[in-house]
């Protein structure tokens, strides 16, 4: 899950530093705190768990994506203030699992619940499991039916999917769109988002298996870079960096017609622009498959109620609960057992014009070839986003910006 709430910022940082203390609440219940970012779809589950365990009182706190992870780092460093359960996004899990001593080792007995690669993603080098998987990203393309129609393109999801088996054809469709698009509407939100989707499909990402950054020699990424830069030059991009306030406004103003959509992105669209209900739909992602984002629940060792926290984290990430989260928030489960279940596979989403989200995303999850994420994959992703943004802002040519990016991350 990668949902940067952004502007909430420093205030929350201060607040969560103060709210760090766990322990027992006044009425004799054991208080379990859980630190999250964005919408994990857990609210109903908390109530359900409290009902079944009257002695437990769950307190949740939510910060923006980057604040949450930085707070967690600070709390671990000072051995004070972490929540009993802390969510960690895939972009940060490698940095944390490099120091497994900070976390409670979780039982491997229930390993089979998760996709193999999801399980391994939070496994430290010495074989300690620090986090149970929540959701995975998967990939599709969310698109605006109304804008497609206005530009004379088909709006039916199967026809739209057929427009772009490859990213080259995606960009070609973009040019058609741009030729007749309504004023102010661009084809995609911003270069960094599209590039993230392309990178997520490559067999190798930023790192090789020896944890060396290989982005400079990665032909797949370079090819994607050139393609997206060309799209930007062709005026297909709204020039918005994902997860910024400007990007959020872009949803409300209809500034872009397509968006690379991991499952969690759909919850974000609903949060940002409830008025656009019914205008969105879901098509297949060019190139097939791919992954972007997904989270884990960890239990820091410093907590006062480690055993109860482990029990809660285990329960929250169990397949039954993942199915409920998928039903109410649309986050794609990391438990493969669910992909065969009717309730998951047949799920449709009213907001997205009754798109068969269950089928699209479970297909995507099955087709997904996991990519190895190195220690600072999240940082490299940020640097790449900045590099593409420099091109969009006209500050550098695509070549200059690429060279600076490679030099920055490989230094």
């Amino acid at each position, binding site marked *: 899950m990668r949902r940067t709430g*952004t502007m*909430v*910022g*420093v205030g929350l940082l201060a607040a969560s530093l103060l709210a760090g203390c766990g322990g027992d609440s006044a009425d004799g219940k054991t208080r379990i705190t859980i630190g999250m970012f964005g919408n994990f779809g857990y609210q109903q589950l908390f109530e359900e768990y409290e009902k079944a365990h009257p002695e437990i009182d769950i307190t949740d706190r939510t910060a923006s994506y980057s604040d949450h992870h930085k707070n967690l*780092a600070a709390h671990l460093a000072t051995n004070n203030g972490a929540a009993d359960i802390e969510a960690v996004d895939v972009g940060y899990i490698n940095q944390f699992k490099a*120091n497994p*001593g900070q976390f409670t080792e979780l039982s491997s007995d229930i390993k089979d619940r998760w996709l193999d690669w999801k399980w391994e993603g939070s496994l430290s080098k010495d074989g300690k499991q620090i986090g149970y998987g929540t959701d995975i990203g998967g990939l599709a393309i969310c698109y605006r039916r109304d804008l497609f129609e206005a530009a004379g393109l088909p709006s039916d999801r199967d026809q739209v999917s057929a427009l772009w088996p490859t990213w080259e054809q995606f960009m070609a469709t973009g040019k058609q769109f741009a030729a007749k698009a309504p004023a102010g509407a661009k084809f995609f939100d911003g270069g960094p988002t599209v590039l993230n989707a392309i990178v997520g499909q490559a067999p190798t990402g930023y790192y090789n298996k020896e944890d060396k950054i290989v982005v400079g020699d990665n032909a797949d990424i370079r090819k994607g870079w050139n393609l997206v830069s060309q799209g930007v030059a062709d005026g297909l991009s709204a020039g918005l960096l994902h997860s910024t306030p400007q990007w959020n406004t*872009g949803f409300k103003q209809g500034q872009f017609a397509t968006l690379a959509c991991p499952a969690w992105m759909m919850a974000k669209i609903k949060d940002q622009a409830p008025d656009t209900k019914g205008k969105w739909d879901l098509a297949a992602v060019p190139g097939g498959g791919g992954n972007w984002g997904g989270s884990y629940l960890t239990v820091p060792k410093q907590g006062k109620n480690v055993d109860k926290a482990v029990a809660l984290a285990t329960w929250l990430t169990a397949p039954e609960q993942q199915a409920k989260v998928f039903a109410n928030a649309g986050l794609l489960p990391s438990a493969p057992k669910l992909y065969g279940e009717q309730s998951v596979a047949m799920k449709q989403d009213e907001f997205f014009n009754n798109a068969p989200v269950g089928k699209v995303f479970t297909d995507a999850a099955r087709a997904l070839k996991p990519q190895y994420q190195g220690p600072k994959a999240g940082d490299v992703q940020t640097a790449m986003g900045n590099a593409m943004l420099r091109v969009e*802002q006209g500050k550098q040519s695509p070549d200059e910006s690429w060279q600076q990016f490679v030099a920055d991350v490989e230094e």
Partner: protein
Amino acid sequence: MKTDWRERRHRWDIRYAPYAYIAPYFLLFAVFGLFPLLYTAWVSMQDRNLLDGDAATFIGLDNYVELLTADPHFWNAMGNTLSLWLFTTVPQILFALGVAQLLNRRLRGRTFFRMGVLLPNITSVAAVTIIFAQLFGRDFGMINWVLGLFDLGKIDWQAGTGSSHTAIAAMVVWRWTGYHALIFLASMQAIPTSVYEAARLDGASGWQQFWRITVPMLRPQIIFSTVIATAGNMRLLAEPLLFGAGGETGGSDRQFQTAALYLYEQGFKQFDFGYASAVAWLLVIATVVITGLSYLAARRIRTD
């Protein structure tokens, strides 16, 4: 002998009691100021991961050497900090003088306005930044909307160095002008009116009175304000962080990454605790130097 002893105790009392009275402050400073400072100095000489203090290794001044000789991002951040210092400190003091001068007149609801100028200062930075983000938005910002009315095109505030510094400086100046204005106002009221009366008799205009009497008489307060503003600016973090929507790189090309923001990036994004501590210490040194320079500059205000 007895009186002698009493005499001595009395002398000690006079001599040392004041130290005892101010000791609590210094004790607190030692615990919350000096100790962190020294501990940071110790950490800054280590190669240390934020999450793994046990595995730290002592590397002497290597972090400093790398920062000063091989880290263009650090120098870029220092440059931005200096630029923002110029963009914020000078207008802050000038505006504050003007506001104080206005508040010093006889006007209706004086207390209301005097309290009012402090409001921006007590507003949370996060709230301020949200509002200013609306003003300085690229596509739907108010300033660009006004520019559009006059067909002046629109500015991508975050993209440029000058434009982003202007936007951030506007937040800082807006927030702190009132604070300094109140300090100036308080001492303006202490200037004897006879001085102005004499000047008026000599035929000095209002403007001349302001620059020749008011400003020189406020010299100590201006020095104080300059020092406070400088020290505050050197650790400017929240405004650029939030202006960049939570990104600690300060824009796509680090065009508005301040030194404090770079420290934050190194420490809490890269988890490079030793390196971040070295940045912190260089920042302390730079703050002392720049505060000293601005003190000297402000002292040049003529008092004759």
